[in-house]
């Protein structure tokens, strides 16, 4: 590397934007606020682009030292950045999608009274997310990790006057804390054993180790704990419950944070730590199982949801499960690939959903939509593309990445046909509920002509005329179109394993070996690919059957399934279960033991008794202060006698 890339600019630009908007935004006009917000996020994107153009594969991994932070003995953690192919992809996704969503937000949030606050938070999120991505050590990464958690909390609770939003924010934060706890312990273990948090230093020490076959070992422990952290951030079983609730936030937030970027941080972290995971097969197995289960589980919930954003949320959880499944079978590049395509089409889905909600004046219930195709054609088209992409229909982006994952799940040394099977089932369900969403929303008749009772006034986008759904402004549509293009063609980078080769320097020769073995199994691969496409089409067909051709059928099926259907509608009662299992005992325990027991009886009483005791003792002791000089002298003499006696005793002892 001959010259510095000035990587530090990329995170700091959004920080500057956040600071400017946060400090001066309240007094500034909306135009000024959006200019600042867009400029700084756009500048970060532009700089990231220029970095991509300037850097060559030979220069990576590139490290940049900014300032020194913690130096304690042999341990050190600096403000230093790290750029390799993996973080480069993340960088592009975060700045690119982030910038598009910034643009979209200008239109979507225009009427909100706290417009400046939104952009300040959004820029702040960008800063932390970029810190997370570019960090060269786990500690700085953790700072970004916590920072995005903070930004997420702030944005979920953006309309904090609404109880559900505030509660959802808290829920997200607390659930994430549980995951962070695991992450932290993993970091402690790393420090204890490798005396560093620096990626290169840690991985250099781990790399020579043999895989832990006996099941449990240090690396397994670290891996599982890291996975716990990832579960929290990336909404995996059992910590996924916050993500559906997070839909209380503004839709661009859902798109940016809870679909495209932040929730994938767990995938990124696991991929980043692939050196550790590759040497801990048990941990990998845990990752794979969690990912697979989450994918299936969330997909089934998605079938029965009627809130458009909730469907997308469960879909996100499910897709994240896919990514973890990929990581779990050792196909990190496939996971990252899906991460990228998912960022495109899920971001697009959310934005399009936002556009729909915008169009119908804040309504989110799909049963009150329908037939919107003619009202909002652009939204319909982009959303259609996204749906095709997520369903995995050739040649859309989702096809390439999903197919890659399924193939790896089947063929990889850590994989198994079980993963593949569940993956295919999930793909079928995904295709079904996505088309269900599409059909319920855009086809049939419009059910919401008289939607005037929206209690979502606080959303701020009820300034438009109601009754007639209307197309969104261009500022919202342009990002939709760009993302639609990306969803269309974004998957082509994976053609002929191009994406995998790009990431080869990061994930190592294992990928190459698999690629070699791939040729031998190409027949199987074609077969599997065919199956997955077939499954996608059949899912779509089922949806068409149920929601277009015979719309009375779903109700019948639901009645027929009875309690099982109720369970699915109520998300398998997981929230209720958690409430019973954890929240209630915690609250009860806190009330009776911690509050009434420890705080009242122990702490308060200790303090009160200490104070009472001090007062009583003082009442007696104050007579020592008689005001008589000679008495004071007497005390001094007696005291010094004691001191002298003690000193002499020390001396002669």
């Amino acid at each position, binding site marked *: 590397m001959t010259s510095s890339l000035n990587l530090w600019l990329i995170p700091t630009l959004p920080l500057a934007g956040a600071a400017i908007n946060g400090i001066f935004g309240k007094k500034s006009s909306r135009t000024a606020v959006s200019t600042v917000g867009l400029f700084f996020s756009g500048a970060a994107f532009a700089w990231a682009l220029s970095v991509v153009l300037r850097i060559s594969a030979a220069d990576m991994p590139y490290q940049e030292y900014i300032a020194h932070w913690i130096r304690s003995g042999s341990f050190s953690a600096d403000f230093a950045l790290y750029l390799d192919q993996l973080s480069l992809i993340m960088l592009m996704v975060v700045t690119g999608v982030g910038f598009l969503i910034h643009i979209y937000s200008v239109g979507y949030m225009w009427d909100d009274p706290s417009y400046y606050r939104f952009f300040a938070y959004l820029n702040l999120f960008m800063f932390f997310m970029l810190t997370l991505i570019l960090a060269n050590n786990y500690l700085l990464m953790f700072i970004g990790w916590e920072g995005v958690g903070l930004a997420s909390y702030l944005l979920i609770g953006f309309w904090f006057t609404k109880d559900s939003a505030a509660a959802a924010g808290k829920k997200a934060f607390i659930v994430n804390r549980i995951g962070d706890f695991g992450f932290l312990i993993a970091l402690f273990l790393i420090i204890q054993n490798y005396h560093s948090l620096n990626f290169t230093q840690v991985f250099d020490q781990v790399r020579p180790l043999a895989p832990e076959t006996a099941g449990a070992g240090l690396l397994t422990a670290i891996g599982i704990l890291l996975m716990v952290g990832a579960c929290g951030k990336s909404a995996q079983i059992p910590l996924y419950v916050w993500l559906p609730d997070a839909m209380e936030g503004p839709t661009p937030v859902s798109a940016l944070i809870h679909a495209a970027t932040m929730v994938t941080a767990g995938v990124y972290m696991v991929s980043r730590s692939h050196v550790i995971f590759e040497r801990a097969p048990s941990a990998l197995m845990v990752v794979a199982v969690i990912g697979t289960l989450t994918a299936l589980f969330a997909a089934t919930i998605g079938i029965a949801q009627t809130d458009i954003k909730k469907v997308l949320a469960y879909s996100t959880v499910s897709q994240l499960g896919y990514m973890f499944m990929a990581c779990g079978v050792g196909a990190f590049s496939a996971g990252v690939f899906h991460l990228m395509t998912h960022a495109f089409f899920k971001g697009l889905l959310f934005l399009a959903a936002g556009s729909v909600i915008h169009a119908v004046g804040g309504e989110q219930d799909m049963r009150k939509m329908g037939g919107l195709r003619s009202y909002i054609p652009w939204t319909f088209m982009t959303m259609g593309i996204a749906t095709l992409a997520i369903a995995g229909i050739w040649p859309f982006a989702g096809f390439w990445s999903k197919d890659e994952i399924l193939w790896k799940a089947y063929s990889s040394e850590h994989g198994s046909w079980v993963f593949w099977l569940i993956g295919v089932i999930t793909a079928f369900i995904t295709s079904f509920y996505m088309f269900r969403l599409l059909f319920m929303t855009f086809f049939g008749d419009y059910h919401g002509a008289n939607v005037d009772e929206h209690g979502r006034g606080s959303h701020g986008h009820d300034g438009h005329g109601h009754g007639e759904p209307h197309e969104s402004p261009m500022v919202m549509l342009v990002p939709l179109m760009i993302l639609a293009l990306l969803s269309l063609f974004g998957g082509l980078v994976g053609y002929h394993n191009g994406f995998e080769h790009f990431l080869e320097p990061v994930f190592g020769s294992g990928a190459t070996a698999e690629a070699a073995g791939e040729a031998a199994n190409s027949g199987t691969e074609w077969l599997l690919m065919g199956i997955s496409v077939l499954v996608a089409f059949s899912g779509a067909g089922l949806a068409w059957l149920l929601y277009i051709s015979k719309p009375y059928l779903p109700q019948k099926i639901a009645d027929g399934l009875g309690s099982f259907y109720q369970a699915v509608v109520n998300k398998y009662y997981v929230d209720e279960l958690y409430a019973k299992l954890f929240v209630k005992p915690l609250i009860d325990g806190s009330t009776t033991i911690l509050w009434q027991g420890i705080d009242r009886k122990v702490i308060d009483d200790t303090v009160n008794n200490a104070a009472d005791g001090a007062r009583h003792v003082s009442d007696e002791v*104050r007579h020592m202060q*008689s*005001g*008589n*000089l*000679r008495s004071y*002298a007497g005390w001094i003499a007696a005291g010094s006698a004691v001191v002298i006696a003690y000193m002499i005793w020390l001396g002669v002892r």
Partner: protein
Amino acid sequence: MVPLSYYLVLSGFLFACGVTGFLIKRNIITIFMSIELMLNGVNLSFVAFAAHWHALAGQIFVFFVMVVAAAESAVGLAIIIAVYRTRETLNVDQVNLLKL
């Protein structure tokens, strides 16, 4: 040739007399003089140690003690005058308003 301990015992005796004076004397001026007596006792041990260890610094300390004693007595006696002016007594047993 006098053993060091003789000087120290004398010094300690003077100091003890000073302490006793502080404890049993009622007149504030005498109490003040008891303090001076204590300082003198300490000074003696300083000088004795200076001679014993051949360290002149011990004598220097005595000068500082004297300077501080001079400052202290100047201020202290001024305070005594002020106290006498308001309380019209020199008996410390009767100057005991500063209490709880």
